Structure formats: C-alpha cells, structure tokens
C-alpha cells in the first residue's frame, strides 16, 4: 500500500518554517560570553526535526545540508566547540539558505544551488575549525581540477548577478551596466538561460536571465558596487574576490588532505558543485510564492473548539425554535421569546469567534525585525536596540500579510538614516545605543503601528528646499510642519542625498504610502531635528467588531468606543469654569478637563440639552488627552460591526467609521482624538 506523501508536504513546510524561526531567534539571543546549553539545545532540536522531516519526504538536499548544520551545533552543545560570533553568523546564513531551499521546493521552482553550495562551504570551513587554516597548502592540481578559470594569483572579482523579473521595468538595462563594467577591466560574461520560459509564456518586459561575470584586473570593489547601485533592490547578487574564492576552495582541499577521518568526497563535492553550477540562479517566482503562501492559516485549536461548541448550541436552539413553531399557540410566546434571545446570543458569539479566526497577533510581522536590526546594525556599524511593544495586538490576517513589506521599509529607514553613528550620538549628548521602537495598539476601529527612533530626525528646512528644487511646491509656499513632513510621501521626492529614501534603492516613501492607502489606511510622520522621528501607520480593522456605547444627541445616534470611556457624570454649575471667557472646562476630582459639546461640533440642530446641567458628560480619553463629551443621553451598550465610510464616501473628521444599528439605520462611530482636533479648529 502506498501513501501519497504529498498530502503531508504542506504540514512539513509549515513546521519547518516554524523551526527555522525558532533557530533564528535562538541564534540571535545567544549570549557570546555565557552560552546557555538549553538555548543551543533548542536550536539543535529544531534543526534535527527539519532534518528528520526532509529525510522522510525525500528532500535530500535539505537533509544533507541540515546534517552539516546539525554536526556543528552538536559540537557546540557538547562544549567541544566555542560559540563565536563568526560561527553564529555562518549559522544564521545557513538558516536563511535553508529557508530559501524550502521555499523553492514548496513552490516547485529550482533550488538555488549556488548559494546552497556557498553556505555549505562556509559551514564546512567552520566545522573543520580555524586551526588548520594556518597551513594552506594549496594543491595546484586540485584547484585546477575544481575550477580552471580561477587561479590563486588572479586578481579580480566574481560577480553573480541575478536580476528579478521586473528589473527591466525599473528602466535598468543590464547591457548598459556590463558595458560600464567592461571599462573597468577584462570582463568574462557567462549568461544563464535556464530561467527562460517557453516562447508562448514569454513576456518581453520581464527579465529571466542571470549572469556570472568575472572581472579581471585590479578593480576597486566600490567601483563595481557603484554600477550596481541602482539595481540593488531588484536583483540578487554577490561580489566575491576571485582570489578569495580560489583560496577558499584551496583551503578546503588542503583541509581534506590533512584530515583523513573525513570522507574526502564529502569535502570536495560542494566545491565542485560550486564550480559546476556556474553560480546560476533561476529567477525567483515571487508572485507564485505569495499566492501559495496565503492559502492557509494556522489556528489555535482552542479557537476551533469554541467554534464547534457554539455551532452545537446553535443547532440545539434551532431545533427548539422549530419545535415551538410547529404547533404554535399564544401560550408559547414566552418560550419563543427566550428562544429568540438565545439565538441572538449564539449568533453574536459565533460571529465573534469566526472573526477571531482571522485575527493574528502582530508578532507575526514583528518577529522578523530583531534579525533585520541585528544584521543591519552590524553592517552599518551602529549600536541599535530594538524594542517591540504590543506584539499581542491582534489584526486581521490580510493586514498582517500586506503590512510587512512597508514596515520593513520603514524600519530599515530608521536604522539606516534615523539612528546616527555611535560617535555622533555621543557628540550629540545621547546614549551611544540608539533605540528603535515598534509599537502596535488599537485605537477606535484602527490599529496603529508606530515606528519610533531617537535618531537625528528630519531637517524641515532641508526638506522644503529640496521640494522647491524638485518643483514639487512653489518657492514662496507657506507650509505647516505637517505639510512639510507630508512632502516625503510625494512621488519623486526620493533624493540622491538620501534624506529619507532607503539606501538609494529608488523605492521611495510614496510607494510605502500607496501600499498603506491600498489597505485603506494612512501614514503620518512627526519628526524633531536632533530628537528622532515617529512614523505612525493607521490601518482599519476590516471586519472588526467594536464594543460601543450609543449616545443620543438630538434625534441622532452616535457610537462612542467603550474602551475610551472612563465614566459618565452629571455636571453641576459649580463644576464648570470658563477659561478666558470662551473655553469651557469642568473639574473632576481635582483635574480640569475641557468640554466638547457634541451638538456644536457636529452641528446638530435638534439637540435637547443646551445647558450643561441638562445633559450628560461622558468623560473620554484618547491619545493621552482626557475631555468631557457633552451629549443628551446615553442609550445603551452594544457590539457594533465597523463599516468603512471611506469605501464609498470619504474620511470625515471626528468620525472613525460607521455601523448599522438594529433598525437598519446608520450610526457614526466617533473618533475620540479626532473630536478634540475638530473642536480646536
């Protein structure tokens, strides 16, 4: 009897990716000085399950690779090997490589053998230890066998250049870049055509080629990087010194010759592979990956159990109701009423639980940032601490999926351009260690994600000058601070001076804003020169349900989010004061709170309560400000389904959304912080 193993693949992939996440966070948390054996154990176990799983399913490439990784970890676990930063970096690199391999297998696309071989090589060098590296008996014959094109004495660079499919659309032409490269030295170009699709599927606007370039001669690496600067975000590439490459190969062969206990084949094979695969990368089918990735969701079993219980209850209620209905007589009216009440409760609970399934903690997005910070701060030579706040804030799955790219962009911005170099920070009287904070919280019907840094902030004057230079605004335009910061999000503002754009990748903040707006959200930037910047993303919680308090103002009904209500009181004349004859305040337990009259700011003609003593004061809090919202009456508490006003209409100041009441009419949900702004105008 044969079992179709393919049905388990999805589970394997999900588990493996989880395992990789565990390994990654484990590696990042390793404290070099004092390594906890348990930490290593956790990493080891994760690696071991991946190895076991991939072996079972016949993904030998993965299991072979993991085996080497595991061996290294095993030695660390037993204390035979010291945990060093370089070793950890190699391990982190391998985790990335494994993830790529698994993604490739999952999408049934070609595995990038070149990078696998490279990482394998790095692991094996690490495994064989540094001690032997002092005697690199380069065996000319062995090297010649491996790669005739590269000799140890050769000076130059091996460049692997694998553009993404959309490279040509960004206006970059590889031919032009190669021409420029060839002015630097003798250039060998090997093109890999394997990524080319069939003629009928071929879209001439897409780039499916990749290249292996050997640039011979004494060339500065910066000169090469300059040429590829524009395409950095649109390709996978590596630049390696030919001498290094040869030396690495030679080292390995030398190690093999000395160390007989290791099977010589095993050691040489990756090197041969390295030469043989011509370091070709097949074009990544990213769109395909995205489509496949979004097909499933992992749900907590307890959530499903609740759901099943509720459906059970619903069925019971339904059968009870149909029994009542079958032989209905007036005497059964009470029974019918209670049945309907039950039905209502169950429906609401069921609705809530179904919504809950789609909700994921934002930590799914946040979890990648410690690694990003680690890598980037090392690369940039900065000291940066990343703080994550509100990781358990739940958001809709679609939001989780779509927000991560813009967020990566913003965090990279903060790390790259926001935080200064340690020396500059000390000179500015700030702690050497910069802080980037990622915070998520709910506000009204929105989820707010903030990226804060305590870096150098943005120079308003500079921004304005730049915008005038670019012709985005008039020379004598008078702009508020907010409008100046808005400039950053304008298309075409990305500057060569890199005031804000991400390392010259040519993808500006306008793209970030467009993505966020596509999600129905908005983005704001506040910055103070020398103190840091805060970028806040406001996203609507689609399908979200809100606990609301309905209030009456005249014959209109509004919903106040229950979470922002502190209390509701009747004010007496004694409590009310006027500031400068105009602004009204009232005293509540020693605090003077401003009064916002709903009927005034929303211009409700039919309001019943004119005098403050006639109506009710709802004490609300939003974004750190507390104030009294003056309404006619409180109606009742209920859960409301948040509907977007913007889908067919537009954003209305002071209103965060709308909902449909039981009688089918529409009620507006108040935006508590927005009302203060409105009343101040």
């Amino acid at each position, binding site marked *: 009897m044969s079992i179709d193993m393919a049905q388990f693949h999805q589970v394997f992939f999900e588990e493996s990716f989880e395992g990789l996440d565990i390994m990654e966070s484990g590696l990042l948390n390793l404290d070099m000085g004092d390594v906890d054996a348990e930490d290593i154990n956790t990493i080891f176990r994760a690696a071991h399950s991946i190895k076991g799983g991939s072996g079972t399913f016949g993904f030998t490439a993965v299991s072979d690779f993991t085996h080497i990784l595991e061996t290294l970890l095993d030695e660390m676990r037993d204390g035979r090997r010291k945990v060093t930063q370089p070793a950890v970096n190699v391990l982190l690199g391998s985790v990335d490589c494994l993830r790529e391999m698994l993604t490739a297998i999952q999408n049934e696309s070609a595995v990038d053998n070149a990078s696998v071989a490279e990482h394998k090589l790095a692991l094996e060098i690490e495994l064989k230890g540094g001690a032997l590296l002092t005697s690199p008996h380069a065996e000319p014959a062995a090297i010649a066998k491996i790669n005739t094109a590269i000799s140890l004495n050769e000076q130059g660079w091996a460049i692997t250049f694998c553009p993404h499919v959309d490279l040509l659309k960004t206006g970059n032409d590889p031919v032009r870049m190669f021409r420029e490269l060839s002015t630097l030295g003798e250039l060998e170009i090997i093109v890999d055509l394997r990524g080319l699709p069939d003629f009928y599927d071929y879209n001439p606007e897409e780039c499916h080629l990749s290249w292996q370039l050997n640039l011979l001669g004494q060339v500065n690496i910066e000169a090469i990087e300059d040429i590829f600067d524009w395409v950095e975000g649109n390709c996978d590439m590596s630049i390696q010194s030919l001498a290094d490459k040869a030396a690495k190969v030679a080292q390995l062969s030398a190690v093999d010759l000395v160390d007989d206990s290791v099977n010589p084949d095993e050691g040489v094979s990756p090197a041969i592979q390295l030469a043989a695969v011509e370091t070709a990368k097949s074009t990544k089918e990213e769109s395909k990956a995205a489509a496949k990735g979004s097909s499933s969701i992992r749900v907590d079993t307890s959530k499903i159990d609740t759901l099943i219980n509720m459906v059970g209850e619903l069925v019971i209620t339904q059968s009870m109701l149909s029994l009542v209905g079958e032989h209905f007589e007036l005497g059964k009216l009470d029974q019918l009423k209670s049945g309907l009440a039950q039905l209502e409760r169950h429906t609401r609970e069921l609705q809530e639980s179904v919504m809950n399934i789609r909700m994921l903690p934002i930590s799914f997005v946040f979890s990648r940032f410690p690694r990003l910070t680690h890598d980037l701060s090392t690369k940039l030579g900065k000291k940066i601490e990343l703080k994550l706040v509100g990781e358990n804030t739940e958001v809709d799955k679609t939001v989780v999926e779509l927000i991560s790219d813009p967020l990566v962009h913003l965090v990279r911005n903060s790390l790259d351009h926001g935080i200064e170099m340690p020396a500059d920070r000390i000179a500015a009287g700030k702690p050497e260690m910069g802080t980037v904070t990622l915070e998520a919280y709910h506000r009204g019907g929105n989820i707010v994600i903030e990226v804060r840094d305590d870096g150098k902030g943005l120079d308003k004057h500079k921004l304005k000058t730049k915008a005038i230079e670019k012709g985005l605004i008039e020379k004598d335009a008078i702009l508020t601070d907010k409008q100046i910061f808005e400039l950053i999000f304008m298309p*075409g503002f990305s500057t060569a001076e890199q005031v804000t754009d991400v390392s010259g990748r040519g993808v500006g903040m306008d793209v970030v804003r*467009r993505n966020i707006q596509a999600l129905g959200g908005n983005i704001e930037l506040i910055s103070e020169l020398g103190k840091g910047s805060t970028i806040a993303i406001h996203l609507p919680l689609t399908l979200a349900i809100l606990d609301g308090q309905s209030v009456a103002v005249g014959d209109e009904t509004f919903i106040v989010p229950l979470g922002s209500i502190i209390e509701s009181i009747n004010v007496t004349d004694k409590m009310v004061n006027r500031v400068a004859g105009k602004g009204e305040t009232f005293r509540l337990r020693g605090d003077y709170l401003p009064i916002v009259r709903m009927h005034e700011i929303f211009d*409700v003609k039919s309001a019943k309560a004119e005098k403050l003593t006639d109506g009710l004061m709802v004490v609300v809090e939003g974004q750190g400000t507390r104030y009294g919202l003056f309404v006619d009456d409180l109606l009742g508490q209920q859960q409301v389904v948040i509907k977007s*006003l913007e889908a067919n*209409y537009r954003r209305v*100041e002071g209103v965060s959304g709308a909902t449909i009441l039981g009688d089918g*009419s*529409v009620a507006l949900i108040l935006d508590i912080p927005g009302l203060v702004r409105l009343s101040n105008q």
Partner: protein
Amino acid sequence: MINADADNKDQSTHVEPRSINALQFLSFSLGNEEYGVNILRVQEIRSWEPVSRIPNVPSYEKGVVNLRGAIVPIIDLRERFDLGRAEYTPLTVVVVLQAEINNKSRTMGVVVDSVSDVVDVDKENIQRAPDFGTKVSTEFINGLASVNERMVMLLDVERLLKLDGIDDCSTDVHEDEH
C-alpha cells in the same frame, strides 16, 4: 459568455436592431431640466428614505444610508447643481449609481425629482456641452442629446462620484525613474 446562437436570438427579438453606436441612458428630471446617465452605471432605483446625516460637509451631501450592509452616501443633485431645494416626498427617487474610480468600485445614491425614461442615443448625435465660461458650471456634463425634441444633459458619472476631497486624483502616480 453568451454563445453566438443566443446572441442572434436576442438580437432578433428587437423590432429595430440598434446601431452599434447606440448608448442607453436613464433620463430623470431636476426641476424643469432633464438629465441622463449611462444606464450601465445605474445599479438600482429606490425611493427616498431618511439618511444619517454626516456632520460638517456641504449641504448637498445629504448623508449615508445602509444599502444591504454597505454604507452609501446620498447626494442631492438639485442642490449639487444649484437648482434650489425641493421637499422630499415618498415619491422622491434615489438613483443608485456605480462607477470605477481609481480601480475601486464606488457606489453612491443621487436624489432626483423623478425618473422619466430609458432613451437610446446614437453616439453621433451627442453634442458637446457649450462653454458658458464660469457662469454655468458644466464640469459634470459630458454632452447634450436631443430626444423627442427635448434636450437631455448627459452626466459624467465618474466625475460626479468623485466628491471633493475624496480622492487625490490630481496627483498622478509617477513611476520612479531608477
């Protein structure tokens, strides 16, 4: 997809086969004037029902209603075109229009006095709206057509549905150069 046979049958049921250039418009009246909208933009016709007012917006934006779970704004066309206000009666009609704006489908109801007819207009018979300068705003008028000796002003639904400040359509999206 309708197969060719069904298509032919469909055609044959028409007494007069319409020319390819014919467009169908739903005509309605506002005061003494007659307007038309492309019938493909009309989702449904409803009677007036009370709306939920939206604070601090122009008076022609009457408010929002619940249209089968979606929040849909209602615009008074008389007020939008400065034709004076009319009392709403149970006979007042709301025409629900739908258009694609910035790749997003947008729905909106417009209040009109009464719906008159569905008229066929040949593309060639549509005249451009005359230019009155700033005296009369013709920004929503696509063209003029005459139907049975009456003049019908054909409205640009897309333009109409773009409320002030709804979309920043003015800023075209430029692709980055590099």
